[in-house]
């Protein structure tokens, strides 16, 4: 048996339910552009007829998201984070090896050998000697410049690693904090949708920086661990990372701090994310390039000096032509730059100033296969180095491009599940508004019915 009150009851639940639905729709519309927002959806469930009549009871608000899609997206972000940091570092390095304009190291090497040949053609002339010194200084200054800039890039990368570690710590702290809030909300029966959205966004930021695995517990908290197993977030606690001085001057090690503050070195355990990309850049790519550059400079210094010190200068002395042993400290012997007469063109068995065997021999070094285990001359060794740099960047570019596509696709999939479609919300708005109006009409009718009854009396 129903009475008019129950009709009013039904109307009331209907009004409230539609109102809530419009509220949720409003929330979705307002957050249409919010990054990381998962749309919320209303589900109605019907009430069994009871004392207050049937009607609509539960208005369940659920957060629409796909857990596995999120996990896949985070994995993709780790890989693209790694390639992104390598790509930007390699772009900086490539600039140092700009050979397109013809004023790079390749060109200066050629000019250096040619200057020796000019001295061989005119061993007594002052002009060829001055030119030789000028070309030599141009060569050594470019070597130093490249080496110095590479060191700078390494320093910067080291600093960026420190910054990234700080960012990771900040993110894990926030996630642990959110864990606490979410667990509390669950206990109190409140919805924690917005908190979970924020936490998911923080997790994405974290994933791009370091490789992590996650596990969501039944109490709503998210456990996060590094790829190697060390925990970063457990319940409401976060474990911090830090940096300590490492083997090289600008090669800090990354450490994980346990609950007592003891540090464990984990540099080799990082396998993905920005952090890994930066580590590869700092500890593998840069030292490799510097090593080859040093080998080139060292080779030139030792080969030229061996011949030059065996030769005899116009003033009768024997000198080294270069000082130093690496790309950073290669320099023309200051005695020679001060006095071009000390350049040795002749060998001790020849007369002065016309003897030129030593100058000829040094000029011949241009084509001598003394590098790469006897397979390449200096110029070829350098062009192989430039090629390696270009190749590394090309790989990073291709990988980055591929990863960007993968990430974009996954993001689109995620958006299709969790994103807000304004068209859809508009339709819903109309739908709920109509239902609200109908429910209001129901109450009107019930009200009129009651009035009719009352007027009958």
């Amino acid at each position: 048996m129903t009475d008019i009150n129950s009709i009013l009851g039904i109307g009331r639940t209907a009004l409230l339910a539609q109102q809530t639905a419009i509220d949720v729709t409003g929330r979705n519309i307002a957050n249409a552009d919010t990054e990381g927002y998962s749309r919320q959806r209303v589900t109605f469930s019907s009430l069994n007829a009871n004392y207050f009549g049937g009607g609509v009871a539960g208005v369940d608000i659920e957060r629409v998201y796909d857990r596995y899609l999120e996990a896949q997206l985070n994995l993709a972000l780790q890989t693209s984070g790694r390639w992104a940091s390598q790509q930007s570092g390699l772009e900086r390095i490539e600039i140092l090896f700009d050979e397109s304009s013809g004023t790079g190291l390749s060109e200066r090497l050629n000019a250096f050998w040619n200057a020796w040949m000019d001295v061989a053609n005119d061993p007594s002339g002052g002009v060829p000697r001055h030119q030789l010194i000028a070309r030599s200084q141009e060569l050594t200054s470019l070597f130093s410049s490249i080496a110095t800039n590479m060191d700078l890039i390494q320093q910067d990368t080291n600093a960026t690693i420190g910054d990234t570690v700080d960012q990771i710590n900040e993110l894990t702290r926030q996630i642990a904090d959110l864990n606490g809030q979410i667990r509390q909300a669950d206990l109190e029966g409140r919805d924690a949708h917005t908190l979970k959205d924020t936490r998911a966004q923080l997790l994405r930021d974290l994933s791009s920086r370091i490789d992590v695995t996650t596990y969501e517990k039944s109490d709503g908290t998210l456990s996060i661990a590094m790829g190697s197993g060390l925990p970063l977030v457990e319940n409401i606690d976060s474990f911090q990372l830090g940096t300590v001085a490492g083997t090289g001057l600008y090669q800090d090690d990354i450490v994980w701090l346990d609950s007592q503050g003891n540090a464990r070195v984990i540099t080799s355990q990082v396998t993905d994310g920005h952090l890994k990309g930066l580590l590869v850049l700092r500890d593998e790519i840069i030292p490799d390039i510097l090593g080859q550059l040093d080998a080139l400079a060292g080779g030139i210094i030792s080969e030229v000096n061996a011949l030059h010190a065996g030769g005899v200068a116009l003033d009768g002395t024997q000198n080294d032509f270069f000082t130093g042993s690496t790309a950073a400290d290669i320099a023309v012997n200051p005695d020679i730059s001060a006095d071009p007469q000390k350049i040795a063109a002749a060998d001790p068995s020849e007369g002065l100033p016309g003897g030129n065997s030593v100058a000829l021999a040094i000029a011949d070094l241009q084509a001598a296969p003394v590098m790469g285990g006897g397979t390449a001359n200096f110029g070829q060794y350098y062009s192989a180095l430039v090629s390696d740099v270009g190749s590394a960047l090309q790989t990073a570019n291709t990988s980055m491009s591929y990863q960007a596509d993968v990430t974009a696709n996954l993001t689109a999939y995620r958006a299709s599940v969790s994103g807000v479609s304004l068209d859809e919300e508009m339709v819903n708005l109309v739908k709920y508004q109509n239902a609200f109006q109908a429910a209001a009409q129901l109450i009107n009718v019930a009200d009129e019915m009651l009035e009719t009854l009352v007027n009958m009396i």
Partner: protein
Amino acid sequence: MRITHQSSTESVIRYLRQQTWDILKTQERISSGKKINQPSDDPQGIRQILDTRQILSSLDQFQRNITQADLRMNALETTLATVDELITTAQDIVVSAEHAPELTTTMADQVARIRDQVIQLANTRLGDAYVFAGHNTATAPFLDDGTYTGDGGAYRVRVGEASEVSLQVDGDTVFKTTEDIFAILENLETGLRNGDAALVQNQAASLASFDAHLQTVRADIGFAMNQMEISSNYLDTFRLKMENYLTDLEAADLTEAAVDLQIQNTVYEAALAAAADLLQTNLLQFLR
């Protein structure tokens, strides 16, 4: 698959970004005229380009070597040609002496002058180097009495990666060792002044011998000049081939690039128009 307005805007942005990047790359090709502007554009190509530039640089240097050497050779040849004329004059004097003994004093003076000239020619300088001094190019190789103060250094020019032209034209080899021309001329002068006909006639044979030797030296120089010309021609041909190879490696095909740019611009404009359409149409326009 649901399409949200956020994902469609993301997609639009991505594709527009890709288009503008491609257009930028094509413009770079056109402005620089090169298809390889950074090592990462083509790692293999940049290596070949640098190696080819190295070869071109050394080819240019060898040509410069040859040009400088040509100067030297020409100076030597001119000098020795003049010496040759003087020797011929001396030989004429020897012949005349036989038939005109009363002019011997005049002839002796002539021979003295010839000897002085030969010494001057032997002390020829090119720039700041004495060309007949071997490697002691800073000091005049011959003293007035015919003493040689230079050494035996050879003149060497590098005309190719493994090829060298070497000339032995030190003063000792040219003017003294085989036949000492200064001694010969001195004897001739003495003979003429003292009326020593036998001494004078002896010099005829020596003069002839020296003349033959001189021709040998001149032939050597001629041969060296020939070698250098052959090398120079070879270098020119090789250089042309290398330049063509380099152009193939690095020059951008402007026609192709211009067409690419045209296509990319058109596609870009179409994408922009489509984006404008997509972004503006939604349900709100139709709900009253």
